[in-house]
């Protein structure tokens, strides 16, 4: 009896080892890639690179939180990029230098910095709320609802973009108060990193310490259970989309200054980066599962890899192959965690 028990125990440990490896395989692979980068170019390990990576991650992280909440609801959001683009164009159009030659609104007085932020967030939240409403009320798959919104938003955004005084041309010449606010530093820390950190804390509290957060996970995990327990499922869904919209608004606001200009192509494809980062960070498409730390890890890993590969001069197209493989591998390993073995 004790003999078999011991044997069972040792075989279980082996299984557990294997499980541990499989569970963390994606992190191990990414770690190996990073090691490879460091070995080929030891100067990668520098404060400056570290700073750049964090700065580049900041906006992506904010966007990942937005779509991450929607993924926890078993959804997805293809309109993220266009929403960010719209927010960037709105912000840019409202915060140009007084002496800039081709201003969007030639007679616009210098606005307080917070006004464009609020407008950008309100517009993004409005369109995102429509997504949420369509998904909640008409039970349309979020992929389709947001696909429609992505295309619609591009139209709306382009019309707005073309309506400025100088016509459809990139919006630049930003007010220095605005650019300092976004790309400046405080006590040596890039402001963008500070904003991303603050938003991470807020999102963490919202997801983990409030009724809204608990309902988010419940509706994402099993909407039927949430419903019979008295949760207002539609309201929860719409709120999650509104929250995503606000985060896209903030992202767009920061992105215009980060890039230094905005046009109707700004933000194009951002949704895919954000979704990929969430998935690599363990926010599961099957719903109800995902952590703030996961989104942070996913975004950082992606940025480190793309920054690092560029750093060592790797071919751009080859980078795409690696990123693509990482995404699918991450999803496959994630699925493996939840598939019951028989």
């Amino acid at each position: 009896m004790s003999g078999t028990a011991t044997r069972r125990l040792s075989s279980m440990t082996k299984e557990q080892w294997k499980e541990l490896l499989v569970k963390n395989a994606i992190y191990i692979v990414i770690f190996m890639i990073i090691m490879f980068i460091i070995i080929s170019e030891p100067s990668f390990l520098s404060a400056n690179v570290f700073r750049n990576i964090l700065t580049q991650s900041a906006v992506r992280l904010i966007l990942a939180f937005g779509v991450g909440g929607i993924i926890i609801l078993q959804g997805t959001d293809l309109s993220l990029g266009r929403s960010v683009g719209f927010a960037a164009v709105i912000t840019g159009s409202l915060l140009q230098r007084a002496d800039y030659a081709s201003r969007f609104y030639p007679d616009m007085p210098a606005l307080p910095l917070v006004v464009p932020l609020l407008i950008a967030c309100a517009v993004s939240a409005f369109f995102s709320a429509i997504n949420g409403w369509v998904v909640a009320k008409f039970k349309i798959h979020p992929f389709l609802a947001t696909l429609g919104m992505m295309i619609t938003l591009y139209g709306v955004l382009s019309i707005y973009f073309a309506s400025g005084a100088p016509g459809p041309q990139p919006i630049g010449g930003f007010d220095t108060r605005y650019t300092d606010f976004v790309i400046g530093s405080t006590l040596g820390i890039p402001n963008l990193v500070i904003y991303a950190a603050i938003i991470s804390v807020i999102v963490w509290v919202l997801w983990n310490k409030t009724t809204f957060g608990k309902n988010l996970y419940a509706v994402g995990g099993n909407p039927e259970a949430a419903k019979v327990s008295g949760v207002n499922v539609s309201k929860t869904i719409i709120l999650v989309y509104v929250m995503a919209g606000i985060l896209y608004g903030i992202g767009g606001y920061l992105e215009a200054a980060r890039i230094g200009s905005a046009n109707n192509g700004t933000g194009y494809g951002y949704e895919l980066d954000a979704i990929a980062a969430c998935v690599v960070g363990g926010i599961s498409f099957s719903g109800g599962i995902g952590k703030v730390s996961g989104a942070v890890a996913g975004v950082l890993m992606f940025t480190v890899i793309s920054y690092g590969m560029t750093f060592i001069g790797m071919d751009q197209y080859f980078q795409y192959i690696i990123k693509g493989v990482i995404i699918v591998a991450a999803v496959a390993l994630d699925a493996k965690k939840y598939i019951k073995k028989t």
Partner: protein
Amino acid sequence: MQEYLLSIRGVSKSFSGVRVLNDVHLDVRAGTVHSLMGENGAGKSTLMKCLFGIYRQDAGEFYLAGKPFNFTDPKHALENGVSMVHQELNQVVQRTISDNIWLGRYPTKGPFIDERKMRADTLALFHRINIHLDPDTPLSRLSVSQRQMVEIAKAISYDVKIIVLDEPTSSLTDNEVNTLFDIIGVLKKQGVGVIYISHKMDEIFRISDYVTVLRDGNYVGTEHVEGLTMDKVVNMMVGRDLEDRFPPKTNVPGDVHMSVRGLTTKYPPVVHDVSFDLRRGEILGVAGLVGAGRTELMEALFGVRTKVSGEILIDGKPIANASPNRSIRNSFAYLTEERRETGIYPLADITFNSTIANIEAYRNRAGFLVNSKMEKDTDTQVKAMRIKTPSKREPIRSLSGGNQQKVIIGRWLLTNPDVLLLDEPTRGIDVGAKYEIYQLIINLANSGKSVIVVSSEMPELIGITNRILVMSNGYMAGIVDTDTATQTDIFNLATKYLNNSREAEV
């Protein structure tokens, strides 16, 4: 009407023109258990969903302590002291026990959730009803019966006046059923009205004060449990006397057909070292408690579950059955336990559902499927099994449980199997249809097919099998002759390895 805590008066409900409830009454007194009985499709769950605000009735009224009410949604019902344990476990398995229990009414401190209170309240609740689980455990780590106990704990955690238990014991062990009945006793003393829905007669007679029977959406009657007999209830439910619940066993087992030797599976829940012989024309029952590994044994035989050792011999020749596909080619058929999850294609029609397991057989030379052949076979099965359906183009979802089950059995018969593995073939099926399924199983054995029947209902195993294999915690505890064994023998075998394997697991 004041004497009743809850009064349901003349409720009717139709779905797309089909009347599923017709002028139904139910009066529940405070401090009593009122059982609601009826065959599947009699309208019990629909009535409860109307009460709970999930559906809106077309006609009729509800009164709570004499006051008319109509709940607009589950939240509204819960706020008014009406809670319900649903037949399907509606839980967020990714989340913890306490997250699930307080879902929809989290205690807050300012804008934040009061986690400490949640945990303390959960522990207090568990203490009250004798559950020993850590509130922070995710539900995905619990067994189905533990999850069911959590669901029951949740239902009583509301300040309830009326509690509806819809088949609460379907996956509970006997001990847990006893705990549940103790809880119900406490609720009764507190003046709660309990509406209890179950197919298990012994439970009904053990805990009910009143029994109301529905048939085909109609109210049949309400009786005090004293003086009520099982026959009377069955009579009320099916509208006729069932002379015998089981058809005569006319099958005669022949030579050994299949031998299983030392079958052991790889992944948990593990089946250890199972060996038995199955004779041609024999009906072998498989008994055991929840979690004993009965379904896992079937899955291992059919190649759903990975085997590590042991062999399966057909007429002395070893076969691998490494995948369901291979098993079907080896003339095996497997009727799964969860009809809705793994049996039916709900939106597809009867023809599709009947022919899908045998689809290769309907190709012509060019490799295309021939509709007429499929329809002909479907017609044959519909007729042979007396499947009640408006047409073979009907989506299977719209059929009753019993008729769905017949379609699935028909599906397997079309593959012309020699060995049939039937896992809970009468689960969720009404009394009348059960008899027909029993007859079907005996007919199959009569025609020389070898049948294994897994069942949680002891009378059923005793009623139709020749021998019974008893599983206990993943191990085979023994095989008994049905004619000579008593229920006590079987129960003793079923508990044989309970302590044993617990030791091994720790």
